[in-house]
């Protein structure tokens, strides 16, 4: 074992420590011991000792494995190769203990034993193995029914919140959509051919537990289009203190319905006279604040589906960006054909027009929403308008003139 005075400090606080975990593995695995040594060295030198990512993989797949090499292989031979294997997660991250044991056994045999459960991609991440171990590891995984996830300029493993399995607010079956999308886009996941990465994340309601709006190129967020269901007796129970706010998950013993719920409604569409709660549903923007505070009194409506938003990403060419509504409401029923077709159209338009390493959200901004809607074959809905147009000029398409000449009707 290497001496690691700087890393040792990280064990001293009250928090769980990855150093402690790694030391436990290091006692029986040389790569983990060298990993600690390398990290200590990086802390001292204030520079990473990982080289720029390599290209390794298994036959037939262009993604799923990320090559990693250290620039100090003589000193730390255990991490000379330290490749990452992405294992596609089950929808909602539900594993049986048997499945977890299977994965651990495979990784014990073919890698460093270090896992990242889970990476922010959604996949189960196996950290650290060598090139010769890749094919046998992959063979063992597939024999047990597992598969690799996406990496590089490919469709990334779709991921979702726990949805209907655990949550009453889920407006569609996120786990089913996630599974079906994974099956449908197998080719795009394993054989990178896009300008850059493309992520699908599915949240069951606007609380957005997988942060789809900020982390996915295609954010699928559950929503209802009818009225919030109200149980007036339960509202009174919250007001009277018999029911605790947020299911007891707040420090407050009693909810002040007027101050905590009505006054904080972002569109001010609620009113409470001490007896009855009224909601002007037309002006509700589905922020979930009232429902989250009073789960026994308020529930999402029954006409449910999802809003599709496009384009969020971390700063790359442009700054960080949140996803933008492109379809205000889509019904989400198996086999999700309209959804799959739309994603296929979008990736096709993006592949055709995008520059290398340009995310779809950046392309949408570069060419404009108008070009985007035309390119993917969507009608531009009013819900996509963020602010009223400030530019008085309008550039008509050629076909607009023709439609105008033929006596176009604006109201359908």
């Amino acid at each position, binding site marked *: 074992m290497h001496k690691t005075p700087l890393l040792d400090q990280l064990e001293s606080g009250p928090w769980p420590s990855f150093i402690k975990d790694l030391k436990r593995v290091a006692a029986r695995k040389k790569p983990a011991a060298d990993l600690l040594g390398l990290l200590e060295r990086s802390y001292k030198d204030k520079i990473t000792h990982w*080289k720029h990512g*390599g290209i*390794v*993989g298994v*036959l*037939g797949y262009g993604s799923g494995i990320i090559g990693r090499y250290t620039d100090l292989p003589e000193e730390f031979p255990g991490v000379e190769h330290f490749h990452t294997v992405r294992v596609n997660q089950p929808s909602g991250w539900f594993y049986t203990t048997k499945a977890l044991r299977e994965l651990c056994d495979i990784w014990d045999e073919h890698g460093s034993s270090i896992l990242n459960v889970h990476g922010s991609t959604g996949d189960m991440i196996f950290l650290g193995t060598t090139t010769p171990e890749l094919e046998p590891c992959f063979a063992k995984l597939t024999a047990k029914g597992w598969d690799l996830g996406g990496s*590089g300029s490919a469709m990334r493993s779709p991921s979702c919140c726990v949805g209907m399995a655990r949550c009453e607010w889920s407006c569609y079956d996120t786990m089913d959509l996630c599974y079906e999308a994974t099956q449908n886009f197998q080719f795009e996941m394993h*054989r990178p*051919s896009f300008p850059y990465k493309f992520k699908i994340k599915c949240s069951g309601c606007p609380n957005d537990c997988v942060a789809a709006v900020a982390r996915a190129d295609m954010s699928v967020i559950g929503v209802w289009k009818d009225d919030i269901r109200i149980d007036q007796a339960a509202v009174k129970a919250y007001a009277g203190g018999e029911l605790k706010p947020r299911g007891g998950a707040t420090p407050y013993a009693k909810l002040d319905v007027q101050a905590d719920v009505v006054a904080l409604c972002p569109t001010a569409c609620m009113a409470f006279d001490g007896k009855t709660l009224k909601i002007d549903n037309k002006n509700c923007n589905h922020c979930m604040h009232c429902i989250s505070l009073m789960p026994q009194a308020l529930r999402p409506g029954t006409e449910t589906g999802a809003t599709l938003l496009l384009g969020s990403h971390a700063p790359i060419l442009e700054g960080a960006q949140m996803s933008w509504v492109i379809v205000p409401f889509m019904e989400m029923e198996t086999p999700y054909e309209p959804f799959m077709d739309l994603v296929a159209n979008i990736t096709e338009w993006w592949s055709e027009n995008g520059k290398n390493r340009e995310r779809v959200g950046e392309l949408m901004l570069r060419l404009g929403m108008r070009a985007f809607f035309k390119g993917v074959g969507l009608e531009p809905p009013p819900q996509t308008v963020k602010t009223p147009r400030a530019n008085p000029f309008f550039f008509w398409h050629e076909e607009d003139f023709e439609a105008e000449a033929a006596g176009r009707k604006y109201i359908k």
Partner: protein
Amino acid sequence: MATIEYKGKTFSVDEDGFLENLDQWCQEWVDYVKDSEGIKELTDEHWKVINMLQDYYKKNGIAPMVRILSKVTGFKLKHIYELFPSGPGKGACKMAGLAKPTGCV
């Protein structure tokens, strides 16, 4: 930097087995990669891909995007994987002697 000896030739390669320098590229290199990538017989289609990659690389200094490779050769991506089982980046670019692509192909 590692070196590989094959049929009397010596090649210097990076850790992923890509040639350090396109000038070293020759028929022996193609034969060597063919064996290690599990390709049985090189056809005209393989050569079409290799030639396209080299032309593009010499002109632009980087490997082309997958879509451009598909368009110019007329081969669907699926077919490129049939020709080069480890894919256009790890298989075809390596055989063509290009420097390791950084997420392009």
